[in-house]
Each structure stands twice: as structure tokens, then as C-alpha cells.
């Protein structure tokens, strides 16, 4: 509903003979990164697995989109066109993306491709029209969300892995790279029987029948990769033209698998960190192993703080509480209440020396109980480990407002000889509520300056009785941030870098 204008509000006010009761309505609540800590996690992942995300896990979509761009240009050239609006090319690419995904969903509705909700109505229809205002709206939607080329799906990796590159004329058009050409040829050979179909041979409006899409499904299915496509991905992912950091990250993962971690993603993640796992990375991979370990420790730090934040919100559901009460409750329930100093409180947690991945799992387990009774002790152990493994200084990309672990450790260092209550007061007031307020306000004001959405991200405020929940605020359950390892293993497996018998060898 549109907000009332001043005239309406003045009219309502003039009509009142008495003061009005304030409305309880406030902006709708939202936000899933309450402490603003996640960006550093992504930056750290970039040190090990740059250029990929957690979504783009299959090879075939890369090849299909890259092929679509080349095919669109070829069709235009065949028609004698010298200059063409990029939108016409993009329309073709959008169409191919939809046809590819539609055909796969027609065979298997659970296939791991984006867009299942949007395409659901077409799973029973006999025709897919690529024309008119509906198609125009679909294109607009897909380009920002469900399309393969969307920024949150395969879009960034298509470029960063080297499947496509922007034409340097600032038009936004894409072209295939030398490295990807062979794979695209291979796909085209598989599609050869169908290429005369208008869907693949003309630009502009048309419609496609369900039976046609079904007929194409196998030719470009996710599991019918050619050897050339696999080899191309192997080269782009971790070969000679790959980002050296990613290549090293992939090598580390493969080495961990071959040294006993096997196919289990959790074990691979743990082993890649080195001790206390039995895996000793080769000397050449020690650097990337250290970077991975830093990533996992940061993951743990972020998760521990977000969980403690959610735990605090639960405590505030009944009534506002001052910081001292939250601290006392945390001390009572996390063990070590007799510790005289922060140092002894942290040391008593026996967190240091454990694997960060194990403590992430411990926190996840603690969150499964209804009362979260094990959360405080799990968080205590996590903090102990994170502070013991904190680097001396933040990396260049770690901004202060994101609370780098090195900065947190420096702050904790100043409180080590003080009682643990003082340390925890700092944790609650600065690391949790301070971070939360800063990011909630900052994002809200950013939206306001850009005339964007109105969302109340603030979940807790300091009011007369202490910290209080904002209206409609609730504690949501935090989860570990996906760290791209599953993507890497999936792509590596499809690329033949992982064989069942001898992991780590080129397949």
C-alpha cells in the first residue's frame, strides 16, 4: 500500500478531537548477515578458490552458455549482419539458456539447475513462447536471478574461469576464448542433428514445442559430457591457464583426498587445514593450506559470533536485559565460571588445538537442541580456538568494520588479564551489538540514499531496561557459510580430475 501523503496526514490530524495512539507498525524486518562479518569469509575463499561460487557446480551449463554466444554471432554473420544490437544476441542466449534448463527439467524435475520455480508452469505446457511481453519480463527477471548467466549463478565463473570474455568495445557482448573453443565445438557436434531447428538457427521471436525440447535433453544433458569438455574444464579450473591460487587450491583438495580423506567433503575440508588432521600438505601446497586454515578459522569465528548473537536474542525474548545479565548467563552456562582471568577462561575451554571444522560441527550440533543449552560452551571453545589462531595483522582486504580476526584478537589481548566478564562484556557490546547496529543502520541508509527497499534489519537496541528486541525481531538460526569446496569437488569430478580409484590423478 502506498504511504499516505502529507495532505492525507494533515486531513486525518485535523479530524481528530483527541490525541492518537501510536501505531505499532514499523518497517518489515529482514537481513541475514546481522554482524556484517561474511564479506571477509568470501575474500578469504578468494585466496584459495577464486573465480567460482557455490552454485556453478556443473560443466555443461558453462559450455551451453558459451556456445550460445558463439552461435548467436554466427547466425548474425551468416545473415550478412555487420553490426548488431547486443540485445538481439542476448535474447538468443536467454532463449538457449531457457531451452537447456527447460529440457532438463522435463526429464528430471530435481536436476541441480537454477530456475525450477520460474519454469514450473511450463513443465506441463506444450509450448514455450519466446516472444511478447511475458518473455520480455522473463528475460529481465532471469538476468538478475534465475538465468544461468545471472550474477549469482554461472555468470561470474563463465568469465573468471575463462569460458567467455567481454568484447573490449564496452558493448557488453561476450565471445568465447581460445581455451574454450574445443569444448564448444564438441557440444555443437552433439547438437548437430538439431541445429536446423529455428530455436538454434535464427535470431528473434519464436516458440518451441515441448516435444522438441524433450528430444534435445539428452544431447546437452548434464551427464553426457564429452572428453573434450571435461579436459577443457580441467584446464580452466586448475590447468596451465587457471588462476594459480585456484590451481593450488584444487591440488590441495586432491592431495587431501588421495591421502585418506576420500570423497567425503567434510573430511577433505578438515584435512586441507593440516593439523590436527593426519594430512601433511606437500611443501609446495603449504601456503594454500595455511590460507585454507585461515578461511576455516574465520568461518568458525563468524559462526560462533552469529550463534552467540542469536543466543542473546533468545534471552531477550521475555524482557530487556543489561549487558551484565547476558554476560552472567553466558558465564553460568558455558563453564569456567570460576576462572579469574580471560586467559584462564579461554584456556579452560580446551578449544585451542582442535580443528576449526570440528568446532563448526559442534556448534551445528548444539543448535539442534531446542534449548540451545550447549551453545555457550561450544561458542566458548570456538572463541578460544579462533583467538589462539588469529594472525598477527589483518590481510589487506580485511576492513576494520568487518571485524578481522587479527583485530578482535588484539582487542582480546588487552583484556586477557581482566576477569572473563569484562571480555564477554566487550564481546556482547562491541563484537555483537555494535557490529549489528553498525551494519543494520549502514545498509538501511544505503537503501535510503538509493531509494531502495525499506527493511528493518535492526534486531536489538539499547533501551531503558537494557538490550531489547526490536519489534518483530527473532533469533534466526545461523549456518556456516558455504566455502566453495563442494563446487570445486563437483567440477573436478566432472572434469575427470578425480577418479574413483586414484583420487588426484587426471582422469
Amino acid at each position, binding site marked *: 500500500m502506498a504511504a499516505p501523503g502529507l495532505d492525507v496526514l494533515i486531513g486525518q490530524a485535523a479530524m481528530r478531537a483527541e*490525541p492518537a495512539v501510536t501505531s505499532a507498525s514499523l518497517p518489515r524486518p529482514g537481513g541475514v548477515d546481522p554482524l556484517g562479518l561474511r564479506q571477509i569469509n568470501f575474500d578469504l575463499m578468494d585466496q584459495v578458490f577464486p573465480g567460482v561460487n557455490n552454485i556453478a557446480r556443473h560443466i555443461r551449463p558453462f559450455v551451453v552458455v558459451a556456445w550460445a554466444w558463439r552461435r548467436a554471432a554466427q547466425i548474425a554473420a551468416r545473415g550478412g549482419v555487420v553490426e548488431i544490437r547486443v540485445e538481439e544476441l542476448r535474447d538468443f542466449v536467454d532463449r538457449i539458456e531457457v531451452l537447456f534448463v527447460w529440457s532438463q527439467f522435463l526429464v528430471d524435475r530435481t536436476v541441480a539447475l537454477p530456475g525450477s520455480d520460474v519454469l514450473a508452469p511450463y513443465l506441463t505446457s506444450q509450448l514455450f513462447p519466446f516472444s511478447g511481453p511475458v518473455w520480455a519480463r522473463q528475460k529481465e527477471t532471469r538476468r538478475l536471478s534465475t538465468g544461468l548467466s545471472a550474477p549469482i549463478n554461472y555468470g561470474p565463473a563463465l568469465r573468471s574461469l575463462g569460458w567467455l570474455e567481454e568484447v573490449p568495445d564496452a558493448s557488453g557482448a561476450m565471445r568465447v576464448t581460445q581455451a574454450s573453443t574445443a569444448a564448444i565445438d564438441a557440444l555443437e557436434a552433439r547438437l548437430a542433428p538439431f541445429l536446423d531447428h529455428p530455436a538454434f538457427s535464427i535470431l528473434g521471436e519464436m516458440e518451441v514445442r515441448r516435444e522438441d525440447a524433450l528430444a534435445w535433453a539428452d544431447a546437452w544433458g548434464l551427464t553426457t559430457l564429452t572428453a573434450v569438455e571435461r579436459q577443457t574444464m580441467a584446464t580452466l579450473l586448475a590447468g596451465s591457464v587457471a588462476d594459480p591460487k585456484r590451481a593450488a587450491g584444487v591440488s590441495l583438495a586432491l592431495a587431501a583426498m588421495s591421502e585418506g580423506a576420500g570423497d567425503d567433503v567434510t573430511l577433505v575440508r578438515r584435512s586441507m587445514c593440516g593439523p590436527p588432521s593426519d594430512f601433511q600438505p606437500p611443501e609446495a601446497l603449504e601456503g594454500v593450506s595455511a590460507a585454507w586454515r585461515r578461511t576455516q578459522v574465520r568461518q568458525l569465528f563468524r559462526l560462533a559470533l552469529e550463534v552467540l548473537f542469536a543466543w542473546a536474542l533468545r534471552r531477550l525474548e521475555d524482557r530487556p536485559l543489561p549487558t*551484565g545479565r547476558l554476560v552472567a548467563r553466558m558465564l553460568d552456562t558455558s563453564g569456567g565460571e570460576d576462572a579469574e582471568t580471560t586467559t584462564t577462561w579461554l584456556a579452560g575451554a580446551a578449544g585451542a588445538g582442535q580443528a576449526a571444522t570440528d568446532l563448526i560441527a559442534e556448534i551445528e550440533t548444539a543448535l539442534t537442541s531446542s534449548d540451545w543449552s550447549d551453545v555457550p560452551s561450544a561458542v566458548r571453545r570456538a572463541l578460544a580456538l579462533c583467538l589462539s589462531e588469529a594472525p598477527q595483522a589483518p590481510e589487506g582486504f580485511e576492513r576494520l568494520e568487518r571485524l578481522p580476526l587479527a583485530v578482535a584478537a588484539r582487542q582480546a589481548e588487552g583484556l586477557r588479564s581482566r576477569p572473563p566478564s569484562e571480555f564477554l562484556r566487550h564481546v556482547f557490546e562491541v563484537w555483537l551489538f*555494535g557490529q549489528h547496529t553498525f551494519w543494520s543502520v549502514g*545498509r538501511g*541508509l544505503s537503501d535510503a540514499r538509493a531509494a*531502495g527497499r525499506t527493511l528493518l534489519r535492526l534486531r536489538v*537496541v539499547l533501551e531503558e531496561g537494557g538490550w531489547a528486541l526490536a519489534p518483530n525481531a527473532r533469533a534466526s538460526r545461523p549456518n556456516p557459510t558455504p566455502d566453495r569446496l563442494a563446487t570445486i569437488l563437483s567440477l573436478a569430478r566432472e572434469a575427470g580430475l578425480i577418479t574413483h580409484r586414484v583420487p588426484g590423478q587426471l582422469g
Partner: protein
Amino acid sequence: MDAEVALEDVHADAGEGELGEFSPLEVVRAGAWSRTVFTTYALSLGFFEAVVLEALTRQKSTSPLILADLDGVRSTLAEHGARRVGRDYDLEPVQVAGGVFHPKVCALEALDDAHLIVGSGNLTFGGWGANLECMDHLHPSFAGDAFVDAADFFRAIATDPRLTHEAAGRLDASASGLERAGAAGRRDGKIRLVNSLAGGVANQIAALARELGGAQRITAASPFWDGGAGLAGLCEEVGLDHAYVHAHPDGVVEGRFGANWPRNPSIGVRPVTIVWLCEAASKRRLHAKLFEIICARGRVLVSGSANATTAGLGSGRNVEACVVRVSREPHIGWALQPSAPLPPAIAMPLDVEESESIQGVLRAELAGDQVAGRVLTDFPVGGATAWLVGGEGRRELAETVVAPDGRFAFGSETLEMEAWTAGRLILRLECGDCSAEGFIAFSDLQEVRRRAGPLAAKLLAVLGRTDTPADAAAMMAWFHEHPEHLTQSGRAGGGWGGEGRTDGVTNVVALLAPARNASTYAPGPSVPVGAGWKRFMDAIFAALSTPRAPFEPRDGSDFDDDMGDEGIARLDARARAEAARRSAAIARTLSLFDAVFNKMMARPGPDLHVAGVFALTQYVCDRVGLDEGRTRACLEALVEAFVQDPDPSDLQVASAAVMLAALVEPAEVPAARRARRRLLALGWPMSGLAPDIDLAAGFRRRLRSPPDAIGLWRKVTSVTTPQEEVKAYRTALEAGRLPANVPLLEASEVWDDLVGAIGTDPARRKIRFLPRNGRTCPCQSNLLPSSVLYELKHSWVAKAPCGHVLLCEEA
């Protein structure tokens, strides 16, 4: 139920109480306000920034002023995340001798409009919706008297000797606006604003009741009571011996002071429930303060900040503000239901640590490198230590002296940059066991707001690293419109930026007045005019150079507000529209950047602020996203500009740019030579450390996997440039010995000639040195053939047709 309440005393009036709900936020959101003043007792800066400031920002309203009681200010000092105070808005603590500053007034002024919101709600979530509060939204079109009253109230706050604060000027300006609005509005005496600085609220209510023929019934709703003394005083003033008191079924808001029921009254207290209030409660606890006085010839209805206590209703205590509605028609009053007194609330225990942390309050202002302020609570006169307090701990700033009136001042050279970048600053003064804390307001922001206008908020967002694509686009448009900010002269503060000029309008009187001679110009303030702006721009360029995350989403991180961890897109239509706006803003930024860059680099010269353009480009590369080819081209152009007119103050960043440009070149040795030549031209010491390539991290993000910088630096320090070799050769020639370490010359076709010239005059005369861009052989004035010029350009040594061996020298 109280036996004293007789049902026949209770007048049913079904027509009253149908008030409808009111959201103060809707009023704030509905206009672009040029002046906004809030007064409050309790204060939550987190709430204010997340809700109210958000609404004001959305409307591009100017920065508001909050006047808050010391208790409110004190409690906000622990809100570490609320960092806009002193930057996006001003907070002025008010000390009241003998009471507290308790009014809840919001005055909103636009160019030709004004609104007042007066009620019981503090500037907290509770006050704006979570509690059961009452508010009046007033407009001059029907409540002109209240605006004139509000003007008087603001002036009284500004001048009353019981109050201590530093907001008199702004209050006076606001009072003038409210007075003008009220004078032009409807003034029928039906809606007034009473305040306790003009006398006790009870006393003023009683006077109105007398005008209406005297009180017959009084009903009160209040969350806090002082045993009943305040209510008894009001009853005495209006001539009644009993009162109906609302017992709110959902309870009352807990407070540190007072009880939830008048338990020791000297008058009759009859517990009732006010029917409409219960219906509107929605399970909310009461914080509204309402008094209905039914009179012989009408009704007086009071709502606002005053509790039914002596401090609230009496004189010389709290500062309160209430709206009084006077009805001169017969009234039977609110519908009431018999009830029972509220049970005593379980007292909220004051947390031990919380009570220990309660301290004095101060206010301070930073102008340039000078801090001046005042302690508003008891504090020892004499020496004190000033600390800067933040989440990371505290840092000693200076020793200062606190005067008997609490004033103090000191200088701090480092504070200003922190003020630009960090947001809120908290100052702590300590003297023995005494301490006082408060926020530092930043007066240079006034100059920035004046010069940059609406852009100021966006530039501040860049400084605070909360910028969005829309901010980037607006900033780029500003640089495009005002390229002088990328020149040395404009940077010095003398530019014609967005200083709020009114184009085409000037003051003729000022033009005709004789200008002062420079020699007789009186010394100005310690901070030169425009200095704040220059420092601000320096901070902006520094912020633009600081690496930050790209706008482009990765793993859904930029959409994290609407998406789950899995990153799967489930964006609703609004979010999609927003994403489209972001994309459009990014495209506009890139387009504007191209225009700005091309315009500035088309005329490089000593006036070009190359480091500024470099910072802007780095920001665009890093945050907005240039493609790799364009990034390379921009970097190369900037390096050339740096080298062409070296500025020692840009040495660090220019050298980093040189190294990065060399890193991405394919051929290592030529790249190292070129880098060495450029670094020498800039003045970088080759025997020292390598330039810090992280100063160009924004460019690096867009350049594909450049190799290790350490290896390049080793190469740079080991190779020689042709210029160095020519210079070495000249020195050797003059000394009559062979030069050492001149591999380029040794490999050249004229090496034998060069060796032969050492020590033999005839051969030596064959050697001629040319300036860098020399085009003729010194032996004749004819132009050298293009093949020789080409050789000279690339090898710095060539043989002329006349037989001379030519060597180029750098100036």
C-alpha cells in the same frame, strides 16, 4: 475493585475514543524537511539511525538535531554501532537543574510548511510503537496557537537559566520558523502546547478548567506515580477531592523511577479502565500520559510528556511539554469501566555493573584540530586527561583544564581524520575518580554540507565505506560536473564546486563595498577558510584508494539481506527492481567515469591532480568494475601522467602504479627497465624497499593474476636503463676510463666507437650527446633521418649520417 468507585459516577460515552492509530514515521517520511528538531528523555541511537534517520535520508532531509536528557545521552554511549552521531545528525545533551529534560516534541520544517508531533513517546522503539503511547500530529492549518507556543517553548529552552546546553542558536532558528508558521495558521485557542518552563503544567491546566466553569471530573492515565502527590496537587489545583485512575490491564512500562500506581494518595483514587485506551492497546504496556478534565462548560484534554507526578506536573522540576485540547462544548467524557489498582511491579534491579558505569556527561565540538567542550555534570575544576574512547579501547588525546563552568579545550592533530572516516567519536575526561563522557560533534561537516549539498551524504558514505552503486554514480556525476576537484587548484579549496552557489545571483551591496587590502586583512580563525573542505577531499581520495569489496555480487553476498546462505535466487519483484537499479547505477558510473577520465587525461599538466584521478580510477576498477583492457589502459595513462610531472607527495602511490604497470607487461626485462626509468624519474630510491604495490590493489583486482612483485623488484634493481648507461658513459668518458655495468651500450652496434673514444681526442669528438627529444645532430641543423630518430627513441644511442655517435640524455 476500589469500593469508592460508584458505577453511577462513571459516564459512558461511546462516541469518544475512536481515535485511529497514528504513525509519526509516516509524517517524517512524507516530506523533505529543511529543519528537524527532536526532544526526548530516553534515547536509542540504534533506533533513531535505523528508523528515523533512514526515513529522513530517504527524503533527502537535512541533518536533524536531537536534544536529549543527560540520562538518554549517557545510555547511548554504550551503543557502539550507532556511529552517525555528530556526522549525519547532531545530539545535544541538556542538563536541567532540579529535574530532567523530558519533553517529546518533533518539529519538522520545510520551506513553506511546518509540522509538530507532540506526545509521550521517547526516541526509542518503545516510544514510536512498541509501547502504548499517545501523540498529537499538529499543523498550522488547524493548530496555529500550538506552533506559536512551541516557538516560545524552544526559546525558553534556549534561554532558561536552569538548563545547560549549547543548542541555543539552532533552537532560536527553529523557533522563528515555527512562529512564522503558527502566525499564518488558524488560531482559535482550541489546541495549545503547554510547557513546564512557563509554569507548572497542573497550574496551567487548572487555569483552563476555571475558564470552562470549573472541573467536575478528572481521569488520569500515567505509567509512573509518586505515591499520589502529583495527582493530589493537580486535583487541588482544579478543586476536586478524587480522581479516576486508569489501571492498564497490560501493565505499564518499567522505569527506574516511580511506582506503577498512586499508593499513598491524600485524595480519593478510583481505579478504572479507559475503554478506548484498552481497545487500542494491542497488548502493549502503557507509557502514554493522559488527563481528561470534564468541566461545567466543556473539557480540557491533556496529553504529552508529563507523568502524574509532582516532577511532571509541578513547576521548577522537569521540563515537560503537553498538548492541551480545549473543548467549549458540553462533554460527558470518556467511557470508563470499574477496575482494580495495579499490583506492585517487581522492581527492575539495577545491574551492579551498569550502576557502576554511570558517569558524567559532556559535549564537545571539533573544529579543525581544536576540541572545545563542556562538562554538563559535576566535575572537579582543574587539570584533566582527555581520552578518545571506542570499541578498540581508548587512546589518550591530551591534558586539558576544566574551568568552573565546565568548559575545556585542547588541540589534537590526529582527531580530524578519524572524524572524517570513523563516524562517531566519544570523548572521555578523567580527573582522579571522576569521569565524564560524551560525543564530539564535527563542525567542519557544516562546510562540507554547504559546499557539497545533497551530495554530502553520498560522499560521507564513501568515507564510511557504506557506499552503494547509486552513491558511486552520484559522486561520478559530481566529478563530471566539477572536474576542478581533480586539479591541484581546485583541490586547494578554491574551486567552484558544489558550494551552494546560487547561479546568477550575487549581492550588489557586497560587490560595491571596498575590498580589504590583503596587507590589512585581519588574521582569521585558526582554521583557514576552505581548509576543512580540502582535508575532506583528501580524506575522500584516501578512501577511494582503499580496497573494498566489488559491487558485483559474489555468492549472493550482495543480496544477503534477502537470500539464504545457499545463495539461490528467490528475489521478489522489489528486490529484482532494486538489482536492476543497481545495474543501471553501475552502468551510469562507468559511463561517467569514462567521460571524467578522458576529460582529465586529455590535458595532463602540473595542475592535474594525478593522484586524485588515480584514486578515482582505482575505486571504479575495484568497486564498480572496469574490464581488464580498460584497466590496463587507464593505469598506463596515469603512470605516464605521474612521471611527466612528478609530485613528491604522490611518490608512494605513483611508484606503486609504476610497479603494477610493469607487472602486467608480458616481457620481464623491458618491463623492469621501463619501471626503473620511471621510478628514477619519480625519485624512488633504488637502494631501498620496493614500492608498496598494495597501494594499487584496486587496479590489481581487475588485472589477471600478475606475477609476484618481489621478483620484479629484484629485476628492477638489477637492470640498468639506457639513460643510466648514457650517464655512466659520459662520466667515464670525462674521466678517461671504460664505464662499468653498461650492458645495453655494450650490446649496441656503436660500442666499438664508444670504447675507442675513451682517451683519444679525435675519436672522442665523434661522440655527441643529445637532449631527450633532440631531433638534430649538434654538428648541423638538419633534421636527423627518421630511422635514426627511431633508434634514438628506443635505444638512446645511434649513428648519425654525418658519422657522429649520438647518445640521448634525460633532463
